[in-house]
């Protein structure tokens, strides 16, 4: 057998098949250079194995534990999802009381209800006291509302679900004019009232008595008329003995 230094390495590492091993052993008996190589590699192995182990940097173990904790699914929920949800809740909470947001919600709902081929009222009546009574069943106090606003007449009402609240929605309709009167639960950050233009509609947020109302129409004049009527009736009620 001729010299094959790679196989000598395999021999030192006990990685040769049995028959090769025997043949190499025979070769080593006769070959000085290969024997020397085997001797060197065996000694080298011993020295390398005995190299002083390296110290782990003091912070590494801690960093690994921290890293592990931050990748656990539960920790992920705790560290990322929950704060995100909390932040979202906070934003919604903040938006809920922001007049521009509420105005936009009301304008959108007004357009959506009157935009249908058939008005989606749940109760049909032109009698303000009947409408008020319908809402009162659920414990919602609706302020005294007028029967007509200019050419528009009260025709019905329903509850509408907005993004963040459920509101009473009263419909007035007349020649070329539709008006919405909303009674809103919850609060809105405003002093006195809030006027806005949203989605091409005129929106007024007002406090009438202790109740928060919103008036929406594409006709600014109609909005003003309804607003005046509302404050008048409230003033009249307040003035009553």
């Amino acid at each position, binding site marked *: 057998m001729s010299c094959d230094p790679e196989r000598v390495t395999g021999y030192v590492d006990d990685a040769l098949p049995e028959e090769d091993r025997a043949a190499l052993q025979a070769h080593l008996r006769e070959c000085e250079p290969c024997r020397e190589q085997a001797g060197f590699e065996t000694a080298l192995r011993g020295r390398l194995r005995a*190299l002083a182990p390296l110290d782990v940097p003091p912070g590494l173990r801690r960093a690994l534990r921290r*890293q592990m904790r931050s*990748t656990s699914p539960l920790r992920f929920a705790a560290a990322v999802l929950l704060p995100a949800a909390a932040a979202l809740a906070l934003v919604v909470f903040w938006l809920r009381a922001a007049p521009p947001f509420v105005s936009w919600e009301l304008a959108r709902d007004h357009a959506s209800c009157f935009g249908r081929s058939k008005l989606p009222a749940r109760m049909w009546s032109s009698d303000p006291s009947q409408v008020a009574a319908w809402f009162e069943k659920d414990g919602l106090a609706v302020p005294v509302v007028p029967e007509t606003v200019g050419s528009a007449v009260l025709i019905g009402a329903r509850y509408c679900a907005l993004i963040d609240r459920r509101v009473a929605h009263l419909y007035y309709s007349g020649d070329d004019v539709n008006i919405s009167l909303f009674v809103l639960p919850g609060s809105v950050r405003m002093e006195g009232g809030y006027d806005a233009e949203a989605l091409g509609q005129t929106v007024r947020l007002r406090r009438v008595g202790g109740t928060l109302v919103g008036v929406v129409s594409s006709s600014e004049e109609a909005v003003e008329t309804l607003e005046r009527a509302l404050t008048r009736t409230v003033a009249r009620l307040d003035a009553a003995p």
Partner: protein
Amino acid sequence: MTREERFEAEALPHLRSLYGTAFRMTRNAHDAEDLVQETFLRAYRAFDGFTPGSNIRAWLYTILHRVRTDAFRRSRRSPRTVELADEGPAVPPPQDALAQGGEDLARALESLPDVFRNAVVLRDVEDFSYQEIARILDVPMGTVMSRIHRGRALLRQALGGRKP
């Protein structure tokens, strides 16, 4: 035992030897720490796919080498494109410091091209079998033997041809 506790109990005891190998691969503490962190992160994520009772040490080393290879690929420097200079590694032949601890040996090891050093470290420092090394480095057994052989031959040259 939670998954986290199981991983800690099984994988963390190998930190010292993994770090040692990472250090010998990267030749500096900072890169070695990064390498080990990334290795443990990947191992932890893949821990569900690890068969309990099988060789976790070899598994961790396989990940270590994969992380290292990926890092090389990202930086477009392949650890495998190594030219073997005939004049041998650029390490001064050792004086007679061999008897005083492994400093010269460690330096000679450091001077080896990556592919040979990694094979020698896995075999001689970490005592893996050829079969395990083949799996860790994702190369055939014959390649493992040839790399170890050349690595040791280069070390012999670096050590001035003397017995270690």
